[in-house]
């Protein structure tokens, strides 16, 4: 069982009821998150990465959001079928979650100590004094200076970086097996970003949990992740080990993402490479491949048939009819 992934998502389909009818936000997504490793999920806004995370936590906005199909196997149990009471145990206890906005993720009217102690009271102890002691310890753990003072303070008295440390402390308080971090550094200054990522890596080394890191920042992926899932339009475009994705990107979308990273060595003030066009709205996704309207490799077949997932190498999969040409084209442009 040591090799069994801590989280295995199979064919997840998540939909939202809107005024314009049902919209499928996540359409048949499958991936695995291995024990002690970090999985990155990358994609543009609206590609379904956050909805995937909320589906796993069963935190979809109610009553609009719904899991229509698929399995979410966490430690062998299907969370898609779990009762609300079972989810209370999982959330905060077995899976911790870190949110994007540290400025709003904490309750403004309760002290840091009370909010942090709440996690311990829910999962570990019934003793308030004990919970508060654990909270102080946890604050120390995430590098908050003078935690004894900070527990009595309110969120507005802390900086953004400090607040994100508190959010991380809450997510990790009960030593969860998996931490889902939804854009944990997006709202922070660059210097603070690095500190927070360092902190997460350090805590992962200490506590041995798995991390599912959702981001649109390939730099963060490269620094943090072992495996990567690239999502586009609610589906997986490409997935594999981080080296394979960066060295041998086989989906035109992945290539586009990598090409659009500004490089220090490049000519300054030259135009950045961009992916032309816009992501179509979820409700009017084209048939066939969803990237077709922006893809330089698109042919007729891409407009009709949804591409199947194909193996590029062991563990490296891609959903593209023309991935061989994409890889060959990359090789050509690399040699030229």
């Amino acid at each position, binding site marked *: 069982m040591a090799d069994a992934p801590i989280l295995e998502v199979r064919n997840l389909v998540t939909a939202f009821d809107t005024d314009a009818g049902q919209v499928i936000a996540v359409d048949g997504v499958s991936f695995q998150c291995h024990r002690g490793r970090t999985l990155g999920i990358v994609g543009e806004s609206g590609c379904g990465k956050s909805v995937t995370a909320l589906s796993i936590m069963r*935190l979809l*906005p109610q009553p609009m959001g719904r899991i229509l199909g698929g399995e979410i196997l966490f430690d062998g149990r299907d969370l898609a079928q779990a009762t609300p009471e079972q989810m209370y145990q999982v*959330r905060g206890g077995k899976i911790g*979650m870190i949110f994007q906005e540290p400025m709003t*993720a904490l*309750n403004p*009217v*309760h002290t840091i100590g009370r909010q942090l102690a709440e996690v311990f009271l829910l999962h570990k102890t019934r003793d308030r004094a004990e919970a508060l002691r654990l909270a102080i310890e946890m604050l120390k753990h995430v590098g908050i200076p003078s935690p004894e003072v900070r527990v009595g303070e309110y969120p507005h008295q802390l900086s953004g970086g400090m607040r994100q440390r508190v*959010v991380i402390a809450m997510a990790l308080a009960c030593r969860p097996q998996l931490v889902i971090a939804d854009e944990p550094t997006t709202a922070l200054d660059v210097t603070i970003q690095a500190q927070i990522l360092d902190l997460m890596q350090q805590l992962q080394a200490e506590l041995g949990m798995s991390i599912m890191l959702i981001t649109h920042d390939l730099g963060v992926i490269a620094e943090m992740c072992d495996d990567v899932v690239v999502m586009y339009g609610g589906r997986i475009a490409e997935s594999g080990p981080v080296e394979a994705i960066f060295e041998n990107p086989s989906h035109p979308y992945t290539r586009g993402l990598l090409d659009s990273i500004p490089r220090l060595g490049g000519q300054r003030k030259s135009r950045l490479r961009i992916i032309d066009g816009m992501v179509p709205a979820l409700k009017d996704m084209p048939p066939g491949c969803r990237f077709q309207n922006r893809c330089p490799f698109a042919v007729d077949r891409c407009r009709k048939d949804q591409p199947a997932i194909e193996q590029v190498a062991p563990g490296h999969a891609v959903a593209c009819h023309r991935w061989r040409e994409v890889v060959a084209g990359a090789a050509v442009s690399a040699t030229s």
Partner: protein
Amino acid sequence: MRDYFLRRLLLIPPTFIGVTLLVFAITRFVPGGPLERAIMEARTSETRRGGDMGRSSTSEEQLADLKAYYGLDKPIPVAYVQWLGKVVRCDLGTSHRFNEPVRDLITQRLPVSLVYGGITLALTYGVCIPLGIAKAIRHRTGFDNATSALIFFGYAVPGYALGAILIVFLAARAEWFPMSGFVGENFSDLSIWGKVVDLAHHAVLPLVCYAITSFAFLTMLMKNQLMDNLAADFVRTAVAKGVSFKTAVLRHALRNSLIPLATHLGASLTVFVGGSYLIEFIFDINGMGLLGVQSIFDRDYPSVMGVLVVSSLVLLTGNVISDMLIALIDPRVRFK
């Protein structure tokens, strides 16, 4: 913080002086004052006695006496300072209409208004807060829509109009409730329990009318605030920690939603003391509202000023109290 509220309390006397001075001055300028009335009365009685129509019966001497009697012989500033000096000694002067000390008039009527105001306040907040919570949680269900329809019907009907309808149907035709009065005629003969029942029996219809005025506003304010907060990031954080939906509502969303309601409380306190003239008039309740308005009609200026003293003091302290409540609920509010 303490200094702030000390300063706020110190600001009450000057504001009070401003309010009363203004009204005091107005009473001097408005036509139809007590002097003119006395002259009119004297003339009509003389006419009835068949006196000489052409000659003015009120001599200069009598006029001066009357002026002195009504305190109109002195300039406004002097008269005001004299009046204020008496107010400080708890002497509000003598009512022209009742020939009784205004203080006695107010102490007779204040309990009536306090009972109605207190119950109304408790009733509206006690019903609107839970109802708002229930409506927010069951947003867009049959329960929510039905209560909304009812609430907006109530909002559209003014309290006094509803009072008239209730008197016609429930008191006059069905005879379920007494038509008017604060207590029944045989009140003093009743046992303590009988007195309570009698008081409650008389209070039902007026209370409904009182409550309906702010009912829709408070309920919808509560509902909308709570819905905003339920969608807030910090509630999602709380649920991700493993708290149940109920706890998330009560512990995390509710307190944030009460902040605007606390703001409204200060203004509600005026109803507490002032009552509503029209509702008191319809139900023939001898409260402060009725006293205040009838004193104005009768140009009974000592009574007008007396009612003003009480209601302005209540409003001024009410505002300070509601600021204190806000500071108590919201730790971000710190006055300097």
